[in-house]
């Protein structure tokens, strides 16, 4: 009996702690669990969440993507600048293609040429930062025409639900299906779980990893469109540090960094948890920097639990 309880706590300990936290904040700050605040938090996390969806595929495939933060910056600059040049329709197309290309480049190096994912994507982070500055010439860009329908993605809403939340939810649903129920998803799990066995099963691991990175580029492009539309402009630092927050959300959900396990649902949960914790801390009056310290603590906790579960599985 006590054993089952321990197992339950190990599996859902974070969730229990999170529920306690929600209750605690709700008591102290009345505004916390009101529909408008909840929707607000969800809107705030939808950009991070959007990126985390693609990164989840990469992580389940046993790799990492640390380039998504500066990729977001570049793509946001592109979508804003191209909206001024071509109008929103073409700008969005160009942005999606650019995101795909950036992801494909990572995928080529990590998947096909088998270079170390950490190094490749860290280098990419720096490269894309440089590219952003070269592209923008160092100055911020703004959407010139304030009345364009481009504003809908970040500022619009559907039946009272903010458009970013709608886009995030739809994408999460589609990608959850892809990861769980399709051939591609199964191949991702196999490659992340045991690449050799996947190869012996006729699965081309290079291609699978390549595709995972392409997807990560694509979801980052969608995030950039939401971001550009929300801000109606872009600074050269707009996505700085996002790669870590994204990874934190993925890990917090319980997707293992070792690859071979995880799910989109978990990632959505992890990202939402991050959002509510940060929002709760603000509402309780803690200074902004406390969020960062708490996030650190949460990540260590999540990784520790993940490791504990793994060790339990191997030895116990």
């Amino acid at each position, binding site marked *: 009996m006590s054993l089952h309880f321990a*197992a339950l706590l190990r599996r859902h300990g974070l969730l229990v702690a999170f529920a306690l936290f929600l209750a605690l904040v709700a008591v102290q700050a009345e505004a916390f669990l009101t529909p408008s605040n909840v929707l607000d938090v969800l809107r705030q996390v939808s950009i991070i969440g959007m990126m985390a969806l693609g990164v989840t595929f990469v992580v389940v495939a046993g790799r990492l993507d640390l380039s998504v933060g500066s990729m977001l910056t570049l793509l946001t600059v592109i979508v804003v600048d191209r909206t001024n040049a071509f109008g929103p329709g073409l700008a969005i197309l160009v942005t999606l293609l650019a995101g795909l290309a950036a992801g494909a480049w990572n995928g080529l190096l990590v998947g096909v040429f088998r270079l170390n994912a950490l190094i490749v994507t860290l280098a990419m982070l720096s490269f894309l930062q440089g590219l952003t500055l070269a592209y923008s010439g160092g100055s911020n860009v703004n959407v010139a025409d304030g009345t364009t329908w481009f504003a809908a993605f970040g500022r619009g809403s559907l039946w009272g639900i903010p458009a970013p939340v709608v886009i995030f939810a739809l994408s999460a649903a589609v990608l959850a299906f892809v990861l769980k*129920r*399709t*051939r*591609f998803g*199964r*191949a991702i*799990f*196999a490659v992340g*779980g*045991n690449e*050799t*066995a*996947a*190869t*012996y*099963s*006729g*699965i*081309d691991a290079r291609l699978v990893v390549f595709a995972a990175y392409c997807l990560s580029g694509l979801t980052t492009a969608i995030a950039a469109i939401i971001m550009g539309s929300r801000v109606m402009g872009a600074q050269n630092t707009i996505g700085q540090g996002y790669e870590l927050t994204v990874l934190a959300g993925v890990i917090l959900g319980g997707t293992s960094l070792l690859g*071979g*396990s995880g799910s989109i649902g978990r990632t959505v949960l992890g990202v939402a948890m991050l959002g509510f914790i940060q929002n709760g801390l603000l509402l309780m009056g803690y200074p902004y920097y406390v969020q960062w310290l708490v996030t650190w603590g949460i990540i260590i906790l999540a990784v520790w639990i993940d490791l504990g579960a793994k060790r339990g*599985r*191997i*030895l*116990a």
Partner: protein
Amino acid sequence: MTTPILTVAGITKTFPGVRALSDVSFDVRPGEVHALVGENGAGKSTLMKVLAGLHQPDAGRIVHHGREVAIASPLDARTRGILLIHQELSLSPELSVAENIYLGAWPTNRFGILRKRAMREAAAAALEALGCDFGPDVRVGTLSIARQQMVEIARAQAFNANLVIFDEPTASLTEAERAQLFATVAQLRSQGVGIVYISHKMDEIFSITDRITVLRDGTVQGTVETAATDVDSITRMMIGRDLSSYFHRARADFGEETLGIEGLHVPGLVHGVDLSVRAGEVLGLYGLVGAGRSELVEAIFGIRRASAGRMRWRGREIPLPTPRQAVDLGLALVPESRKEQGLVLGLGGRDNITLPHLARFSTLGVMRPGAETRVFDRFRDELSIKTTGPDQPVGLLSGGNQQKFVLAKWLCAEPRLVILDEPTRGIDVGSKSAIHELIAGLAEQGLAVIVISSEMPEVLGVSHRILTMADRRITGSFTGDEMTEETLIGAVSAGPAALPSAAE
């Protein structure tokens, strides 16, 4: 009567959904080799992991040297002198032999600095005592499996173990290495060490053990003196029924050639191999470990790139395939190492079975779980696999049950040629004969079958024709009456030059 080194009484251990051990009692005496036998998943490894501190029992007592003890961790077990030599070896390939012997218990001085010299010397002494032909400074990754095993045994020597547990130690050893291992076991035994010996090989059990304890479904069926029993009664205790014929050879009814290989060359690994196998034929590939058999079939399957070679597939000349193309043509390769090459341990049995055939089990890229579950159910019943369900990660299964999933994975898509690399390694006697029957059945359905095995009786028992390999070349081809132990041994030990007939 001597007092036992170790007595366990009433041990029970459950995992979610499985009762692996229930009320298990047995004892080990000093200077005794005690066999532990039972079907795959009977609980042998689990029981030994309890003794080695890897699992904590839910109930029961362990008495060691007359005192009741709780074995908290592997290190605790080791300091008590209890040492488990794992079913799958567990050394650190990057460390030296000496460092591995003392892994986790490195001798240090009072400043916490590693006492390298002392460690080296003690390790060298242990290796010397066992008659090992390598020194303490060699990197473990460069040693053969048999020598790695000696490193684990040297640990027992170095820590003055009083109880050594061998979990299927001979699964990947050659005949000579096996003899060497038995000599070592005898040596430990004469030092008064108690030994628990787990194996599925009856000949071993009957040649080196003093008593036998039979486990079935986690319960002890009985403990008997080896001298007072025989293979049949032990088998009956294990599986609860009689085993009729051990080997079953397929009817010899051959069709056209399924696969032909000419001049296959993989630099450094396979030298100019020709072979041909027909529909309905079982071709045995016999050789010692390291002869190049696995490399040969991996090249055929496209896992290794061949530098030269031609391939005929059902009468047509085709380029050497990639693994994907090989699967699609109808080739199946049951690889040698189930954990590394065979299975994704974190996935369930169902997902593992369908992994090579995702297209077949999906529509427009979407998997059909119903169809997947149906094959899972079919093979679970056909091969009597012990698992709690389609989603139970295969990493949690016993070694033999994992092997059955590897077989299921390759048989489920009706291939035309099945290559089996050591298909019965770690499989219990009952399932072993079931697999031999399966092989015969496949051939009788018109499949071509290639069986690699290091077990002489197995190759002789199931094959219609046997190719021998030594030193990465084919050294002989034998059929009918030519297939005897003597001819095979001659063909794998003499070089190719000494042999009149080459492969066909």
